[in-house]
């Protein structure tokens, strides 16, 4: 499999995908704090 970091588009798309994943992680973390 090709390393996405070898292309600029692959790098940018990977960054956007990570943003979406971590957005939900942040939502979960904030919700966990509010429920505590």
């Amino acid at each position, binding site marked *: 499999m090709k*390393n996405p*970091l*070898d292309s*600029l588009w692959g*790098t*940018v798309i*990977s*960054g*956007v995908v*990570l*943003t979406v994943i*971590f*957005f939900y*992680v*942040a*939502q979960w*973390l*904030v*919700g*966990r*704090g*509010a429920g*505590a």
Partner: protein
Amino acid sequence: MEALEGAVLRWVHVLVGIMWIGLLYFFNFVNAEASKQANAAGEGAPIGKYIVPRALFFFRWAAVLTWVVGAGLLSTMTSASGLNGFLAAFGLQGEFAPIGLGAWMGTIMLFNVWALIWPNQQKILGMKPATDEEKAKARRIAFLASRANTMLSIPMLWFMVTGPHQNIYH
């Protein structure tokens, strides 16, 4: 006075952060391809001699200042549970979790700059002795670390700008 201190720290954090990430984008979006083309034309030497060392100087020290001032800014804050903002952010606690995720990404990026990009760039630029094989390896490591930082800058900046806007996380 406390509010003014926070505003000044935030302002300096953004200023030096622009210099750091701006130079990171210069390396990745402009210089990498331009150097490749210049080297192929036999005209790449001035870039390595005059541009990259100067850009790397501001790049690596702006990274340090961005982190230190950001850490200072967090330290001026207090979480709802009474924890110092720096500890709450890095501990991913409650309302500090989003900015904390950004802070962790920025920390990984700072590590990449000083532990991977800079030592390997010194070999590539001839500031440290290295064989051709070592230079080729250094080029690959520095390239991937720089690309990893470009990738991480995208979610990092998301959390930097959305961290104080809590309503999107509820």
